[in-house]
């Protein structure tokens, strides 16, 4: 489904127009906020190299917008290398519970200008306000070192964003931003929160889910390998034996 940027823009504008038209009717509150995604499903196919999902929306009255995207949680082990008899070996380690497998945020202005730290912390907005606490018993200094290492490593593989992305306003009411999903995006249900902030306080929140799932051949192979692992192993061996045999027949004369 190759959407040209042009078609995308038309679809986007059409959607925004519809939203804007229904806005006053649907929500008579002062802080109406409407949000949607260009796509609610990110399909990881055999040719998947990463993708962008367009998030767009409208506000009735002027305000600031922050978007956070959080992937499914997972426990993570962080290990530290130390030099031991001349070589670098994993020694100490710490476990972090419920670490999101993906985290990204976006805002139209720097977050610390939009809202103060207390608000951001209460709503756990932004990477620095995620509560990553090592379940392992370690000192305060180590706690910080391991936490930073966890964030740094996730950023290096592109699953945590380095800094908040930009949300652009098209007028005072319409906004959009691209959420990037790299090739190694984990599968699962993602929660996207959109915060409307006015005078440093959260005026409205909209939550929308996004599903990342494997489809097509690669999904079936993965599923098969996990569900019928013995049969998968046997098939892997048979494929190898047959192709080895074919190769020896084809190249016998050479």
């Amino acid at each position, binding site marked *: 489904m190759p959407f040209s940027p042009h078609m995308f823009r038309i679809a986007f504008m059409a959607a925004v127009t519809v939203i804007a038209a229904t806005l006053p009717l649907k929500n008579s509150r002062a802080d109406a906020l409407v949000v949607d995604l260009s796509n609610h499903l990110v399909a990881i196919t055999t040719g998947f190299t990463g993708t962008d999902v367009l998030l767009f929306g409208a506000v009735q009255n002027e305000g600031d917008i922050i978007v956070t995207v959080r992937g499914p949680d997972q426990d993570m082990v962080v290990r530290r290398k130390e030099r031991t008899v001349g070589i670098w070996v994993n020694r100490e380690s710490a476990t972090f519970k419920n670490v999101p497998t993906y985290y990204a945020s976006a805002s139209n202005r720097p977050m610390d200008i939009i809202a103060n730290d207390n608000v951001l912390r209460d709503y756990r907005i932004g990477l620095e306000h995620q509560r990553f606490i090592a379940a392992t018993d370690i000192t305060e200094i180590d706690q910080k070192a391991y936490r930073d290492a966890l964030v740094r490593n996730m950023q290096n593989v592109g699953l945590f964003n380095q800094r908040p992305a930009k949300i652009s306003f098209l007028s005072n009411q319409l906004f959009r931003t691209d959420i990037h999903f790299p090739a190694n995006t984990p599968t699962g249900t993602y929660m996207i929160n959109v915060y409307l902030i006015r005078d440093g306080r959260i005026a409205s929140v909209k939550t929308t889910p996004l599903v990342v799932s494997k489809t097509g051949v690669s*999904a079936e192979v993965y599923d098969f390998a996990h569900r019928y692992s013995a049969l998968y192993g046997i098939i892997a061996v048979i494929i190898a*034996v047959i192709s*080895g045999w074919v190769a020896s027949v084809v190249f016998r004369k050479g």
Partner: protein
Amino acid sequence: MQIYLPIAEISVNIFLILGLGGGVGFLSGLFGVGGGFLITPLLIFYGIPPAVSVATAANQIVASSVSGVFAHWRRGNVDLKMGLVLLVGGIVGSTVGVWVFAWLRSLGQIDLVISLCYVIFLGIIGGMMLFEASRAIFRTRRKGSGIRRRKKHQHSYIHGLPFKMRFYRSGLYISALLPLVIGFFVGMLTALMGVGGGFVMVPAMIYLLGMPTGVVIGTSLFQIIFVTANVTFLQSIQTQTVDVALATLLLIGGVIGAQFGARFGSRLKAEHLRALLGLLVLSVCLKLLFDLVIEPSELYSIMPGNL
């Protein structure tokens, strides 16, 4: 062109993987080696998770050994009885190896152990090969392969071992314990390093068992097929790290590369080939050693799971 690997769960360049398989296939055709010891480190350098690299390389070696064994089988260069005894040891060794692999992985030490195994074995084998080949090059009056094997009826402590068996094809009457132990040891290496283990087994068969050089390659290929098949099967069940898509790509590249390598190899002298192979093996060893010794830019690593 990118392709998303279903088990490794990353997107790779299809031509790069084909080229990698082709390059290693060329070298394996050139030198007459399996090439597992090159494939696995190269996949890891490329960014494929070590566990997937090792398990998938084992799967790919099944194919390359099958394609190699037919020629030897037709010429009667497979000592079936010896192969089966080695295989019994190999199956036990590789099963234990897969279990040790999973255990080390949970400890977070599998990458280190894989690297260390490579450094040690590649260092020893590469060094010996280079030493032996350069001696042969400087002593050109000696004809033949340069490999001298132990005299057949020379008695040593090996002949005092129990459970003696007669191996007609190899013309040997030795204790079955010896091939069992060799098979076990090489099976462990297959599981831990993603190699066929020919580079350990062939010298062991010649120097320790005293087998005639003619049947050594065919017999080792014969047992490697089954040991690598066992590793593929067990890794599929235990760790789900065998990537058939990756294995197939490597295999296609490998088969084609090997044909060119074999043709090119016939133009070079045997001792020159062995010296080149020795250099190659040593350089892979040094690269891995270097990575272990210099301070890494990132001291911390992450892995999903619990302690």
